């Protein structure tokens, strides 16, 4: 049975609809995430689902009851929120902030019973904030505050928690910590979590269902593995200067393209080289790389020209020729020092042929290895100990 359900919901302010046609069904223990650009209406939807904003059309049901007909006390025992607004409650300790979540359970004067105190401690321990209990809330860092507000929501003992961008302004450690706690809540306590996120990778890696919001409507709705394709992400955020890779679970930036650099890579040796070159606005050509190689996905995502071969196939003569031609045309050739095995051994041919055509090769291998692979010692092989040193040299040459 669903815990929270939205039917043909339209949300907005006064008569201005921000997002319409929302149909959503949240099951017990489900982890649902709203993705979308700034201003797309994620917060407005969440505020409406939380009962803080009346819907313009349609309705929201919480455990089968119409949300806006529910008694405030009953509602607050079933659903809790964590909002984006910055709080400065004054001289209130962390424990007292968390304990405020007991509001729907305490007596007329808000006195805490033994059970209330115990529940508050449990929640603070769960979010690893028990050490902060005696500090003033205002003195905490953003990450600590967010954990305490999450504890406050838990203290309400809700079945649904709605969080508006809980990871904004947090560093990596706190961001991961908050997401870990939320996942734990859904799996261990069966709490339904609905949140909005800005990090696509976090959504991909933690949520069961994603809701993509753009231009006043829901673009699509489903498992992030299925719906978060490169094209969908690019459309969602109108990204032109970057690519999202479903395999990598992240974004790679693209550049406008400048001096062409050919990179011989594979088995991950290329990824850092591509990224660095990309940063300095070189346009990258790379190959021959197998389609099951990490370098293939990174290269593709950041917009490099990738000469590729089918997985586990030997490099074909056609691919080899193409690589040699593109390498010849490039302003510069880099050997990223990829391992050479039986399936990609023909890559050695590329460098040999380019050397034969008087190309200078910037090499990240040791001298012995290069000598072993390419035969004779060659003055046109320039050795660099690190990628950074090499790119500095390239930059100096460019000027």
């Amino acid at each position: 049975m669903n815990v929270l359900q939205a039917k043909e919901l339209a949300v907005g302010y006064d008569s201005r609809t921000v997002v319409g046609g929302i149909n959503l069904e949240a099951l017990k223990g489900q982890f649902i995430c709203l993705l979308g650009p700034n201003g797309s209406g994620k917060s407005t939807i969440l505020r409406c689902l939380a009962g803080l904003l009346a819907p313009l059309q349609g309705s929201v049901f919480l455990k089968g009851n119409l949300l806006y007909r529910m008694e405030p006390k009953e509602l607050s025992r079933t659903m809790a929120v964590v909002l984006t607004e910055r709080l400065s409650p004054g001289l209130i300790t962390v424990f007292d902030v968390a304990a405020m979540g007991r509001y729907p359970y305490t007596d007329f004067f808000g006195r805490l019973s033994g059970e209330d105190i115990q529940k508050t401690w449990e929640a603070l321990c769960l979010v690893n904030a028990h050490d902060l209990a005696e500090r003033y809330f205002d003195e905490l860092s953003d990450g600590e505050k967010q954990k305490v507000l999450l504890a406050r929501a838990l203290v309400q003992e809700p079945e649904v928690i709605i969080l508006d961008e809980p990871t904004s302004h947090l560093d990596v450690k706190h961001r991961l910590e908050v997401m870990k706690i939320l996942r734990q809540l859904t799996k261990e306590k069966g709490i339904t979590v609905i949140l909005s996120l800005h990090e696509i990778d976090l959504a991909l890696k933690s949520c069961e269902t994603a809701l993509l919001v753009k231009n006043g409507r829901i673009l699509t709705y489903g498992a992030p593995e299925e719906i978060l394709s490169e094209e969908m992400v690019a459309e969602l955020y109108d990204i032109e200067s970057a690519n999202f890779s479903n395999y990598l679970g992240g974004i790679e930036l693209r550049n406008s393209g400048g001096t062409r650099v050919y990179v011989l890579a594979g088995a991950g040796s290329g990824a850092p080289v591509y990224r660095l070159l990309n940063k300095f606005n070189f346009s990258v050509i790379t190959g021959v790389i197998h389609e099951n190689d990490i370098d293939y996905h990174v290269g593709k995502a950041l917009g490099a020209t990738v000469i590729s071969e089918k997985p586990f196939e030997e490099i074909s003569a056609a691919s080899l020729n193409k690589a040699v031609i593109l390498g010849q045309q490039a302003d510069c050739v880099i050997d990223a020092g990829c391992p050479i095995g039986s399936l990609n051994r023909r890559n050695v041919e590329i460098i040999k042929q380019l050397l034969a055509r008087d190309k200078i090769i910037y090499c990240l291998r040791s001298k012995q290895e290069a000598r072993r692979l390419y035969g004779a010692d060659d003055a046109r092989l320039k050795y660099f100990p690190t990628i950074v040193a090499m790119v500095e040299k390239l930059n100096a040459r460019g000027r």
Partner: protein
Amino acid sequence: MIKFHIGRTGKILLLFVLFGLLLILFVILSIVYGSVQIPLQDLVNVLLRHGENIVYNKVVWDIRFPRALASVLGGAALAVSGLLLQIFFRNPIVDSYVLGVSSGATLIVAVLMLTGFTLGIGTIPSYLLSAGALVGALAVVLLIVAISCKVKQVVTLLVIGLMIGYICSAVSSILVAFAEKENLHNFVLWTLGSFSGFGWDEVIIQAIAGGVLMVIAYLFCKSLNALLLGENYARSMGVNIRILRIFIVLISSALAALVTAFAGPVAFIGLAAPHLARLTLGTSDNKILIPATIILGALITTLCDFLARITFSPVELPISAVSSLIGAPIVIVLLMKRRTSL
């Protein structure tokens, strides 16, 4: 952990006792000192109605005792009013008059005092002034309550309150420009506030009305605490924000109106007393803060009234001047010692 808890509650209790004792001390001081000094022994006799000295009896029972009680009650009322509005607007520089209560009262008083002659009234009796001030203050309160039901943002209400204040002040200042010199002097003195001339009738009205309002304010401390986290969180925990808003505006303004009606606008108490209570007790928990603010408001006002009376006796200083001169530096020092915001 538990030790820490006891330490904190212990400190709070100790401060409450200290403030209480200070309040009693200041009340006694203001009864004893003045142009006629009353020895302590005689004071006891007078208070127990055993005194034979007619002068002492009259000074204590007719003048100083009601005045001291009036400053205790007035100070407490203004302080609670200020506290409620500071929570409501989540703004530390708000005081009891921010919604224009004092300006409304001042306007009516200005009409009465400055145009009294033209209206054919000779000297204006003080009850008429009080009634006028109360009418002016309550009119503004009702206007604000009506507006508060319409506006969504609390800050809007704050700005509207300030604007109403400006309008009232503007009209008052026009009346001032046309006023006669003698009336003007009295009017200016009224606007600076004073607890002199309080009789028992006024004290009883203040005690009953103020007492009831302050008790009601305390009954709402659970919702007021939830409001510390902001309106949205409060609502998500089951607080009825609409009712709470109207309640806060109504109670805080009624408290301020009550004091202004009899004593005129007394500055700074509503701003300073809540801060002093928060900073000395180190908490924003309203269960503790409301009683603490009541005692501190009473204490500061009694002290200030006492100083206003005796410092340059027989000239009496305006109480607003004394309260600002003493209160402001204390608030500044306490604020500088704190790391966190308010």
